[in-house]
Every structure is written in structure tokens, then in C-alpha cells.
């Protein structure tokens, strides 16, 4: 039992996951499955973004889907209406999300708890309304078609599913590596202190606004870049991308996997995506299951799959530790907690 648990929490598990992702196109049953996986990776990147502001920093951002849509629209508008190539447009989607996120952040992050959630819910809706109504810029409810796909390098052609799959995988790994760096660093610990309590964080000399805005901008950049990739693969987008239900999807992924954990966003996104795929006809009504599932999760398993597992394992390790309490000095506990935080 413990062995299996240790394995799941070990770095080796991550290697196994990566190896699986790398060979997935070879073992997948159809090109469609590869496509679904690539889309799931894109959503996972967005979920990692939400995890930074909501999971680490504790601020429930309900405009996250809106930022995803903004990223997608930046790529769409620049490539279709202004003749840009995909890659510069992709960079622009990150930059624009950052700028817009910064502006929204400096206003909204002064608000506490409920006010912040309500405010961002409204921001998400404003984004949707603007995309839907501002026809001169966004083509209105018709949406934008023929978005440029990512330009390939040499023989690699990203309009084909498999190369695109690897491209998205590359960005996902990059996203996870960066989040894992952040979460175990002083910057991530600063975010966590804010999540515990604004007052506590401030009493420890942490500048609330600066750190919250940093976390928020990071999260919007993740969302925006994920949206940019999405536009590049789907190549048709409309205002529906900004509907609040996408934000709720992202929240569901995060909550199922484990809010505030490193692997939670990936686990949650994969689990829900493939569950939904397993019952195709069910896609339209998925909320009949997701809705109650969200409720049950927050009541009975608020830490999600990964969080619950880590807590369980942590407790087990801790309960065994007293056996060697006599000789446990600070040095030992420092290493074991380092390990714990690496795995978290």
C-alpha cells in the first residue's frame, strides 16, 4: 500500500506520466482521441492558470474563461483581419492577456472574498457581451473562421493532429514546470500565506496588492496562451468561448483534481475529459452530473483527488515519524518537508 502511494508521489511517477503522454499518439485508437487529448492539454494549461490565483492565492476568479476567450480572439483577429502569422499573434495573446489582466487585477484585487468573486463574474460577462456585440472588431455572433494554424518548422506541419499534439504537450510541460517552480519557491509560499489570510500575510511583511496582482497576471497569461493555442487548433471561434459555463468547467477540473496542488489540474482535466468522452451523448447534459458532483466534492472531498491523497499520505508519514522522534533533529525534518513540498 505504502509502496504504491510512495510511487504515486515520487518523481518517477512524473516520468511515467510524461512517457505515457509521449507515446500516447502511438497507442491511441484513433486520430480523434489524439485530438481530444490535445484539447484536454490546452484546457489543463488554463486550469493551471486558475490554480495560481484561486488555488495558491485563494481568490476565486470567475472571469477565467473570459481571459481564455480573449487569448483566442487576439490570435483570431490578428491572423484573420490583420494578416499576422500565428506565432507573433500567439505571443500577442499572452501579452494582451497580461496587460488586460493587470488592469482588471489592480481594480478587482482590492476587493475581498465575495466582492472579488462577484466582480470577476461581471468582468467575465462584460467580456462575453463585448465579444458578442462589438461586431466591427470581433465579427459579433458570427464568430471568426479560418484562423491561421501554427506555422511549422521544416518538415513539421502543425495543421496535422500528431505534430500539434506534441506542440501542445510541450507547452503543457512548460506550464507545469513553471508552476512547480513557483509553488515550491518563496514566491509560491508568499501566495499561500495570502490564501491563509490577508491579515496574516500583511503582518509578515507581504505586500498584498503586489503579490495578488502578480498571481492574477500569471493566471491570465496562462488562460490567454491556452486560448491562443485553442484558436490555432480549432480555427473557428465565436462569443460562446467566453460563456461563463467554460469558467465553471475549468473550476470543476480544478476541484476534482485538487485545488492548490501541483498535479491536481492535470488529473482533474484528464479525468473529466475522458469521462465525458466515454459517454458521448452525455456531453450536452454533463452538468446534470457535474453540478451535484461539484457540490458533493466541496462538502465531502474539498481537496480533490490529489489533495486528499497527499493529505492521507502525509498523515501516514507523520504518524510513523514519532518512532524516531528521539533523534529527529531539525535537519531531518527540513529534508522530509522539502520532499513533501516537492511532491505537493
Amino acid at each position, binding site marked *: 500500500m505504502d509502496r504504491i502511494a510512495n510511487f504515486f508521489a515520487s518523481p518517477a511517477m512524473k516520468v511515467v506520466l510524461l512517457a505515457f503522454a509521449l507515446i500516447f499518439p502511438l497507442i491511441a485508437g484513433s486520430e480523434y482521441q489524439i485530438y481530444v487529448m490535445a484539447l484536454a492539454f490546452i484546457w489543463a494549461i488554463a486550469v493551471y492558470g486558475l490554480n495560481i490565483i484561486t488555488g495558491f492565492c485563494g481568490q476565486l476568479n470567475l472571469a477565467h474563461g473570459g481571459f481564455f476567450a480573449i487569448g483566442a480572439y487576439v490570435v483570431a483577429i490578428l491572423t484573420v483581419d490583420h494578416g499576422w502569422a500565428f506565432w507573433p499573434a500567439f505571443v500577442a495573446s499572452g501579452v494582451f492577456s497580461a496587460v488586460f489582466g493587470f488592469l482588471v487585477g489592480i481594480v478587482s484585487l482590492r476587493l475581498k472574498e465575495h466582492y472579488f468573486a462577484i466582480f470577476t463574474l461581471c468582468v467575465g460577462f462584460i467580456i462575453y457581451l463585448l465579444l458578442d456585440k462589438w461586431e466591427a472588431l470581433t465579427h459579433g455572433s458570427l464568430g471568426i473562421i479560418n484562423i491561421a494554424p501554427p506555422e511549422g518548422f521544416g518538415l513539421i506541419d502543425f495543421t496535422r493532429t500528431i505534430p500539434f499534439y506534441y506542440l501542445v504537450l510541450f507547452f503543457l510541460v512548460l506550464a507545469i514546470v513553471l508552476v512547480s517552480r*513557483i509553488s515550491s519557491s518563496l514566491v509560491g509560499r508568499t501566495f499561500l500565506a495570502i490564501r491563509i489570510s490577508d491579515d496574516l500575510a500583511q503582518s509578515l*511583511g507581504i505586500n498584498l496588492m503586489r503579490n495578488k496582482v502578480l498571481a492574477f497576471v500569471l493566471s491570465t497569461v496562462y488562460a490567454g496562451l491556452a486560448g491562443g493555442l485553442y484558436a490555432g487548433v480549432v480555427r473557428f471561434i465565436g462569443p460562446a468561448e467566453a460563456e461563463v459555463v467554460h469558467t465553471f468547467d475549468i473550476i470543476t477540473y480544478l476541484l476534482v483534481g485538487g485545488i492548490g496542488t501541483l498535479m491536481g489540474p492535470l488529473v482533474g482535466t484528464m479525468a473529466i475529459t475522458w469521462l465525458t468522452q466515454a459517454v458521448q451523448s452525455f456531453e450536452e447534459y454533463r452538468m446534470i452530473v457535474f453540478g451535484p458532483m461539484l457540490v458533493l466534492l466541496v462538502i465531502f472531498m474539498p481537496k480533490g483527488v490529489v489533495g486528499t491523497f497527499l493529505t492521507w499520505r502525509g498523515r501516514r508519514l507523520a504518524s510513523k515519524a514519532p518512532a524516531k522522534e528521539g533523534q529527529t533533529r531539525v*535537519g531531518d525534518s527540513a529534508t522530509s518537508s522539502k520532499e513533501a513540498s516537492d511532491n505537493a
Partner: protein
Amino acid sequence: MLKINNLTKRFGGLAAVNDVSVEFAAGQINAIIGPNGAGKTTFFNLVAGAMPPTSGSIEFNGMDVTGMAPDRIARLGIARTFQTTKLFEQSTVLDNLIVGHRLRTQSRLWDVIINSKRLRDEEKKCRAKAAEVLDFVGLSHIGHRYIADTTQEERKRVAFALAMATDPELVLLDEPAGGINPEETENLAALIRKMVDHGITVCLIEHKMDMIMSLADKIMVLDHGEKIAEGTPEQIKTNPVVIEAYLGSEEDVEA
């Protein structure tokens, strides 16, 4: 070291702290007592910068810190604990303490992205600091334990350690002995003395009179936001105004 001049805080028409002037000397244990709703926590909030005063000023080491943001005040060397000890339940005790020294570090997001030497050095420094303060409060043996599995008294000590990790000159303790038993209270009082022995000035709010009377060098009594007395424990015990307005009967003072 801490000089308060005519400090007032009003909420609407109500003065929670009214025209309080007091001076706390370095290296001492200063206590603030008073009945519930006397404005003690508000007084702490003002000193720590959690809210700006309506009028009056606060000087720390000769520097005017009135209305300064709480994070800046913390960096100047004023740390505090809260009545309820909020900690990160899903982390170990030691992990909780590492962020305490964050305010003495410079690393930013860019350092994280490139994994700079500065970041690695500073993380080492914060970790060492966490171990040091954990040792200071006598909890080295439970550094690996999850916060959720610690006792009330241990949590109090962790909160002390967290405040100590900021390298403070002055520590504000809000009801440190609330919710723990008499024996634990004794141990906590010993820890507070140890802090002072290490050159830290302590200022605390407490309801447990016997603890205050044996611990404090100086006591200030607040009632309805106003300072009604200050002095040594001996002076306070015999001060008729205090007995009249706050303690009601002499037994309570001795109790």
C-alpha cells in the same frame, strides 16, 4: 521604542480608541489590559498598521509610522500574532514557518523562472531561519508534523515562531494564552520571557491576570477606548480607578 501620541480611532461616531498616549520602553514586557470591548485589539491594529488612526501618531524607534501599510511596518520590525491562530493546515509546521522570513528577501518571479542563485541562497536562508525559530520556541521535534495534527498550545508556539521569523524588534501578542490550560500558560509565559532575554520588546493583550501580574514590566489599562491607568503591576493592583472601573472587586485582581 514605541511612542504613542493622542491616538484616536473612531468607527462612525464611536471611539474605539480615544486619545491614548503611552510609551513602551525597549526590552520590556508591556501588557495592555481592560474589559472586553475596551479597544485593546483596535489599539494593536493601529500600531501594526492594519487600520489607519483617525488622529494621533505612532512613533517606532523615533520614526513616524502613522498610517503606514502593515507590510511596511512589519519590515520595520514590528511583528504580531492574532487571537485566532490561522495557519496552513495541510503543510508541516516547518513549511509554515519558511514564509516568515520572506520579508527579508528580494527574490521575484524572474528569479524563480531562471532559478537564480539569489533565490537558492534566500530559500536556504529562510529555511535556516524557520529551523532556528522553531528551535527557539521548543518545537524542533514536531517540525515535520502537519499543522492539522498539532495541539492548541503548539499552534500558539508556531504563531510565536512565525512572528519571530520576521526578525522583529517589537512583537505584539494578542491574547497569547487564550484557550490553553494553566500549565501551558506557565510555559508560554516562560517563552515570552525568553523572547525578551533575546532583546525583543514584547507588548501583549491578555485576560489572565495572574500571568500578566507576574510577567509584565509595565501595564496599561484601557476602558471604553481610554487609558485609565498605567504603571507597574504593583501600582495597577492598588490603583483605585482600575479597581473601580475595570476589575469591579479586588478579588479579581488577585485571582
